[in-house]
């Protein structure tokens, strides 16, 4: 296997890492208005703080996976990076703005104890989690389907080109899948009423995700499928159904692992459908960006391969350790008093 193909695989691994990890924090963000809705204002606030604190220590590390996927695509497939990022200009702008306001929300929400302040950041978190989940789905599904690309590797479509029914279906599948994955994560990381609510909700969103995903993968597979893509499609479907079953049996760890496998198998399916292209052209097959015409030199790929082999296991090890450090379930009773710069501690005035 040559280095460019190995890097095609490694890019798939990076996107898998991104969606498995950031997928659940997108889900938790989107669940703010549902699982974060309590009996009264006080209960609602406590539930939202519990949700926020399940992902508080880890969301930032999760998000680095997409920066690494972007940087690695730049280094290993400069043409893929250039065509995709300049071509999908406005959707990527929307994703970036959404990630910015969401991340600011995670960091700033708890820094003032003020209802209006928190309500505004809640909106940023909810919309900022929903939009990227949807738009990554739309973007990646369109890449797999093929988009208009000319002989100079330039995208010739516009924003509306991407908003076709199958692209949008891809977006909805991502949203439903991340909602389920996020709900399992909440069930795994919390205790009390919010845990029970998360489990009940996950079964419903899981069934919706399974239904939509089957339609999407069949539509994509019938036109482009190979033995391998059908195999990973089957794995994705089985893992998703297993997760729903495990959830109804109150086995939250298994349920979460199930959606993680589903996401990994779905990314694998997308990459099998792409192979040997990285960005097929719907204008003319001859204009498609392929693994080999879009890649860097063997010299660069070799250096990148060594770096990936040495450092990815180290990153995985310390990220896994982080999850171990913060392994305890959180209940509303665990929440300390809210912080606020206006609350001057006794004895300092």
């Amino acid at each position, binding site marked *: 296997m040559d280095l460019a193909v190995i890097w095609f695989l490694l890019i798939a691994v990076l996107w898998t890492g991104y969606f498995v990890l950031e997928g659940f924090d997108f889900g938790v963000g989107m669940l703010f208005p549902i699982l974060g809705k309590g009996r009264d204002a006080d209960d609602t606030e406590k539930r939202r*703080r519990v949700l926020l*604190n399940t992902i*508080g*220590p880890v969301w*930032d*590390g999760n998000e*680095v996976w997409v*920066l*690494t996927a*972007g*940087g*690695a695509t*730049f*280094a*290993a*497939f*400069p*043409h893929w*990076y*250039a065509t995709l*990022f*300049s071509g999908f*200009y406005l959707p*990527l*702008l929307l994703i*970036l*703005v959404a990630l*910015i306001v969401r*991340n*600011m929300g995670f*960091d700033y*929400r*708890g*820094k*003032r104890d003020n209802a209006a302040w928190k309500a505004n950041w809640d909106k940023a978190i909810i919309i900022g989690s929903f939009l990227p989940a949807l738009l990554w789905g739309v973007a990646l599904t369109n890449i797999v389907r093929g988009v208009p690309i000319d002989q100079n590797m*330039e*995208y010739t479509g516009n924003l509306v080109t991407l908003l076709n029914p199958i692209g949008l279906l891809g977006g909805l599948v991502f949203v439903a899948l991340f909602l389920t994955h996020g709900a399992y994560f909440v069930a795994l990381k919390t205790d009390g009423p919010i845990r029970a609510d998360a489990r009940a909700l996950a079964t419903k969103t899981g069934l919706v995700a399974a239904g939509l995903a089957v339609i999407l993968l069949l539509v994509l597979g019938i036109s482009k499928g190979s033995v391998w893509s059908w195999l990973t499609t089957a794995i994705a479907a089985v893992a998703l159904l297993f997760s729903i079953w495990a959830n109804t049996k109150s086995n939250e760890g298994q349920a979460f692992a199930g959606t993680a496998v589903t996401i990994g198998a779905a990314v694998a399916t997308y990459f099998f459908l792409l192979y040997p292209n990285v960005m097929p052209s719907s204008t003319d097959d001859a204009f498609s960006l392929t693994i080999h015409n879009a890649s*860097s*030199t063997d*010299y*660069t790929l070799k*250096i*990148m391969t060594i*770096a*990936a082999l040495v450092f*990815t296991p180290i*990153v995985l090890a*310390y990220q896994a350790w*982080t999850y171990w*450090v913060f392994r*305890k379930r*959180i209940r509303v009773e*665990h*929440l*300390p008093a809210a912080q606020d*710069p*206006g609350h001057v*501690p*006794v004895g*300092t005035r």
Partner: protein
Amino acid sequence: MDALDLARWQFAITTVYHFLFVPITIGMSAIVAYFHIQWVRTHNPDYLRLTKFFGKLFTINFALGLVTGIVQEFQFGMNWSDYSRFVGDIFGAPLAFEALLAFFLESTFLGLWIFGWGKLPEKLHALTMLAVHIGTVLSAYFILAANSFMQNPVGYKYNPTTGRAEMTDFLAVLTNKVQLVTFPHVITSAYMVGGAMVMGVSVWLMRRSRPAADNSLYRRSARVGAIVTLIASLGVIFSGDLQGKIMTEVQPMKMAAAEALYETSDTCAPFSVFTIGTPDGTKEKFSIKVPCVLGFMATGSLDKPVEGINPLREQLIAKYGSDSSALVKDATYTPYIPVTYWSFRFMMGLGFVTMAAAAAVLWSTRKGGTPRGKWWSLVIFGAPLAPVFANSFGWIFTEMGRQPWLVNGLMTTATGVSPSVSSAEVWISMIVYTLLYAALAVVEIKLYTDYIKKGADPFEQPKSPDQMTDDTELQFAY
């Protein structure tokens, strides 16, 4: 404005804005790590209070540096796709290394540090902030290596078949001689920023001293900040001096543009501190000059001349031809002189002002003294901001001084822009970024100043992980 001008403005706005927060992050992570390690070593309550107080300010600032950094990673492909195609084989690798070695380290360990109270043993906890700091320094190294390639391309060959620059020696890219002087310059200037930030905040709180007993707490941090600033500024001067010599060697036009030196000088070229010229900048009307300083800055000796813009321009036209895409402003291979001339002076001037402020703080806080008098407000508000803006001007100088090149001698800025992105699209993104960044700045500054006004929380003995039961409140939560 066409798509090219807009893309340049957008890159300038988003990058200068991003880099307001970067040096604060690099500098303050080092100082917070120092306070935290001192707490673990001495168990002096002051150090824990300072760790938590400046750690809070650090995280408020880090958030903005992080979110604006995501835009940077995507912007090369979004707005500069032809540049990305041309240099991706070389330029992409340091970016990927930065994400893999630095971003993961910073982000993961900052999460551990923020939420680690009561979860991590105290020694390990203090080290997590050190890991964050190491991450910021590694990040600076890789991104500066990428930038240094644009100033002085090395370790590559041009492949006419693929029509792009291809890497032949990664080690040469990482040890570019421009990089070896730029990295220490940027890192020490970031320590100046971090030091001056801690110093300014501390002097303000020291003068307020509420309660009076906290005067000594803030004196301690004020002096740490001032010492860091002062030592770092020596590093900035030393590395900047080396940079001048390398710049004269690899980008003589940029050195000439720094001085607006049109004709080659005699030996012992003077440095003008201040000049009033004609509006097009080609004739001077009034100038204050210091003899020999430019000559020494550029060449390291008193008896070599410094080449001027006009002869350099002739050389460049002879070498590269009069390709229309390389023609900028006055139809030559020349950067826009008023910007290079003044940004160079503002960079140095603000740096020296910061250095003087640090010396003044050290002097006035000696033997238990507290800085009194109205003019200290200038130091309090000016000292943290001056080195931040000195950084901005330094970047504006070095990037504008490279024009019209995107990669020096290899690719012009005009040829790097994305052909498939319309000016309407760049207008939209530029307006969105500008408004969003402005709004975030307002929110950030208000939050930052409110937490400064609150001051350090009173000392509370932290709980260790083995004191935490299943029912204990979290020691930190959002």
